[in-house]
């Protein structure tokens, strides 16, 4: 009982969620079926939302679920569906530079982990305010209004660009290009 009392729920939650996140991230990279990878990606996103909850960032967590799990996964799924033509079981393979990549990545990860570890135990500088949404909204619409508008513009541009890129090419055009 004492042992258990010393554990904070936040810590338990964090470690569980972190484990889930890392495992699902690994699965995203290593499963051979791209659809499975996307489904694992959804799991990853949701577990990350949990991680955000342990950071008292409820708003970000909700956004994470809406945008990533709710929208981006769907988009990727749509993309896959639009271009599937091969055997689904062999869609998520490695290329020829895997070993070299593994080396570089290991070094990068180790380095950043080492640097992170150097930061040591840091206690939160204070309590995160309870009413986050209002504060975030105020900040977004006053102090950060220009980045906010730019982000809106970015989304618009992305929208238009995506539509333009993926639009059907007329038959005669397609002939002249290809």
């Amino acid at each position: 009982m004492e042992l258990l009392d010393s554990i904070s729920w936040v810590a338990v939650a964090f470690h569980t969620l972190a484990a889930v996140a890392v495992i699902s991230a690994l699965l995203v990279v290593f499963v051979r079926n791209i659809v499975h990878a996307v489904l694992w990606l959804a799991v990853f996103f949701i577990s990350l939302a949990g991680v955000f909850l342990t950071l008292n960032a409820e708003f970000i967590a909700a956004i994470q679920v809406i945008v990533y799990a709710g929208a981006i996964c769907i988009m990727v799924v749509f993309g896959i569906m639009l271009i599937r033509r091969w055997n689904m079981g062999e869609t998520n393979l490695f290329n020829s530079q895997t070993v070299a990549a593994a080396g570089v990545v290991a070094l990068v990860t180790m380095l950043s982990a080492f640097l992170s570890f150097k930061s040591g135990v840091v206690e939160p500088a204070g309590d995160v305010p309870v009413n986050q949404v209002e504060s975030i909204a105020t900040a977004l619409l006053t102090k950060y209004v220009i980045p906010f508008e730019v982000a809106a513009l970015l989304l618009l541009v992305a929208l238009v660009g995506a539509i333009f890129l993926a639009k059907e090419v007329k038959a005669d055009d397609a002939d002249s290009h290809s």
Partner: protein
Amino acid sequence: MKTETYTLNLGPQHPSTHGVFRIILELDGETVVKATPVPGYLHRGIEKLAEARTYTQVIPYTDRMDYMAAMLMNWGYVAAVEKLMDIEVPERAEYVRVIVGELSRIASHMIATGAYGGDIGALTAFTYTFRDREYVLDLLEMVSGSRMTFSYFRIGGVAADLPEEFFPAVRKFLGELPAMCDEYDGLITGNEIFQARTKQVGIITPEMGINYSLSGPTLRGSGVNYDLRKVRPYGIYDRFDFDVPLGQNGDCFDRFRIRIDEMRQCKRIIEQALDQIPEGPIMAKVPKVIKPPVGDAYAEVESSKGVYGCYVVSDGSPKPYRVHFRRPSYINLGYLGKLCEGWKIADVIAILGSIDIVLGEVDC
């Protein structure tokens, strides 16, 4: 977005193909690139069977073609044999034929209306029309003893006279029929979603309709006034005053609406027939064993689906040498493949429903 097309096999076991019927759809996304109808899953060889039966024994088999309007199916065959033998049908029998035939037409159109609602997704309409069709079937059962496959017509007349209790019952039903039609109009025809689904969908131009030998509501939806009862009145249809509802656009909506309007016209015809019906025999003088002279005859009647024709060849024996049925559903269906191209999957269902086929008739 340019994507690969893929093949979707609609049927033969599919909820809305109205029987065992198959359409092979080539799809680009949800859009139909090519549609190939494949009938034949209900083929029973009635034409061949008829060659081994006597002339009277063929009648029950005609029931099994368009089992939604079996009276009309009987009528076409009987008319052909009568033409072959040159039989004069008694007056009363003609009136009885008109009354039961038009009742049968009402029943068939009720099915078409309700099933079309079901195709579009309004399942309640389906039960409403079935509920009201039961009244018609009650009437026909009163007359013939069966609810669907009547075998009521005989060469030279009908099997039995109308019972006494039939007359008040049919008048009561006809009194209620307009309210029923209004209910379908309210529930289906007036519904904006239904209109959005059916208007300007699956348009048949009059030229194409004629070219493809379409008939019945399918052709009249395009505005072609081709109703045998008016154009070449058979039996005693020239004695009745009724209108032929026509469509303007030739879309699914028009084809559907015409059927409801035709029910109202059927009411007028039956009422006039009930008023005019004389007393008298219901069978002409026909020999016990029917042996028509050598020769052939082709007779057509207007069934609920379109022009239903029967071609009979006799070699003088008691059995028909060759019988061919011109089934309206079958020929109307021939246009389906062309008609579906360019529409969505859901429209295929809407178009198929609007043609109103019965697979028993298509496959014969």
